[in-house]
């Protein structure tokens, strides 16, 4: 089902990936500028890849900074993720990713893997108006940051444009209004889909180990306890209805948690539907999953 021709499409690149915003009402130049400024502000705060960002300043040892708007919600969600996965998800994983080569300048050559600092909640605090690190470390909100940004963007767009909206930040998307039929990309072959799902008034986040990868099993989803890339699960999809608070952020968080034990339980607690593909090609799904899967029997 192709979108009706009345939808207006706006494409751009930001925070290192492709964005597409579709609206039934035309977005004016002023709204576009507001969206661009919102994304730029988020990037300037949270990007590990720019030396002028707030997290870069904290990594260099600037002990505390005024707490950014999104810190409390995101770090509270990290606390839930960390608890659910036995510490596999940890917002101080930035240094471990940099060791594997995924940091500023995209060195992409690995040093020996090293775990992220354990006990991150003794190191990071975000109360009393300050975001503080007891010891210098690299904060990484990659497990849910893009979902958070999608929540912010769709809220801003919705306040300016009535009607149907799709915000697709490549891997994290949110839909308001008319249902959208979405293919679940095969992580081993981007020309194929392992299934389809239709969502309306919901957010869908996908994560896979195939693109942000640079060889020898090195990719961007790592287990903070070892600093090593994950291997058992190769792709995940999570769907949060808009009634779920911070839907896109939570979908993004669950898409990360599903790479680890404990992910399905947290998805259950948060009321999030999901699908995940294991390294051997089998696909697990949540109770009540509405995705249609193209399993072995239905190969064309």
């Amino acid at each position, binding site marked *: 089902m192709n979108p009706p021709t009345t939808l207006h499409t706006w494409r751009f690149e930001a925070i290192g990936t492709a964005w597409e915003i579709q609206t039934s009402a035309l977005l004016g130049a002023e709204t576009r500028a507001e969206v661009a400024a919102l994304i730029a502000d988020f990037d300037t705060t949270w990007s590990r890849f720019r030396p002028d960002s707030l997290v870069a300043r904290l990594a260099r040892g600037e002990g505390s900074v005024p707490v950014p708007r999104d810190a409390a919600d995101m770090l509270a969600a990290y606390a839930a993720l960390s608890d659910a996965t036995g510490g596999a998800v940890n917002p101080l994983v930035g240094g471990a990713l940099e060791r594997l080569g995924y940091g500023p300048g995209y060195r992409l050559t690995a040093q020996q893997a090293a775990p992220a600092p354990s006990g991150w909640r003794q190191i990071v605090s975000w109360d009393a108006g300050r975001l503080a690190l007891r010891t210098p470390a690299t904060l990484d909100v990659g497990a849910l940051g893009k979902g958070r940004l999608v929540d912010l963007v769709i809220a801003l767009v919705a306040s300016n444009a009535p009607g149907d909206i799709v915000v*697709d930040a490549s891997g994290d998307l949110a839909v308001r209004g008319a249902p959208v039929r979405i293919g679940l990309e095969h992580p081993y072959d981007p020309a194929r889909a392992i299934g389809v799902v239709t969502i309306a008034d919901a957010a869908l986040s996908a994560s896979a180990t195939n*693109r942000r990868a640079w*060889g*020898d099993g090195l990719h961007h989803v790592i287990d903070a306890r070892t600093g090593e890339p994950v291997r058992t699960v190769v792709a995940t999809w999570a769907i949060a209805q808009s009634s779920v608070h911070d839907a896109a952020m939570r979908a993004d968080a669950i898409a990360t948690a599903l790479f680890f034990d404990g992910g399905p339980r947290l998805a259950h607690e948060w009321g999030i539907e999901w699908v995940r593909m294991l390294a*051997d090609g089998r*696909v697990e799904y949540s109770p009540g999953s509405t995705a249609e899967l193209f399993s*072995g029997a239905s190969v064309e």
Partner: protein
Amino acid sequence: MIRTAAPRSLRSTPVRPGAALAGVAGILVLAGCGASPAGGAADTADGGSSAAYTDGTYTAEGSYQTPESIETIEVTVTLAEGVIEDVEVVGNPTKPESEEYQGRFIGGISDEVVGKSIDEINVSRVAGSSLTSGGFNEAIEQIKTDAAA
């Protein structure tokens, strides 16, 4: 994801660009840029930096550690004209969760999913991992160039 079984100690040596293509993940990710014959120890020893892009069928035993166990699987990859034509994985790389856990939090599991061509399924968009930016792609191109040299 799945790597030719190498002693843990070997993993501590710096990763050379050639070796970077030896793992199955590398093959899958860099489809079309070649792979080294995955023949156990020889694979990790020579780093596979020569003979990239050679067509054929490659098999590797993979093993990795989960929190509770060490899992092994066998992966066979067929390359034709430098592109992955087939991937076959034999084994069961996931530890069984408890029945109670499965029933409450996991609805079910399918057989291996091969999928359908995106052209055939009539979708308005596709969700997978994030597309990458110019900087990342340039770095990957550099690795591929180094690996093919």
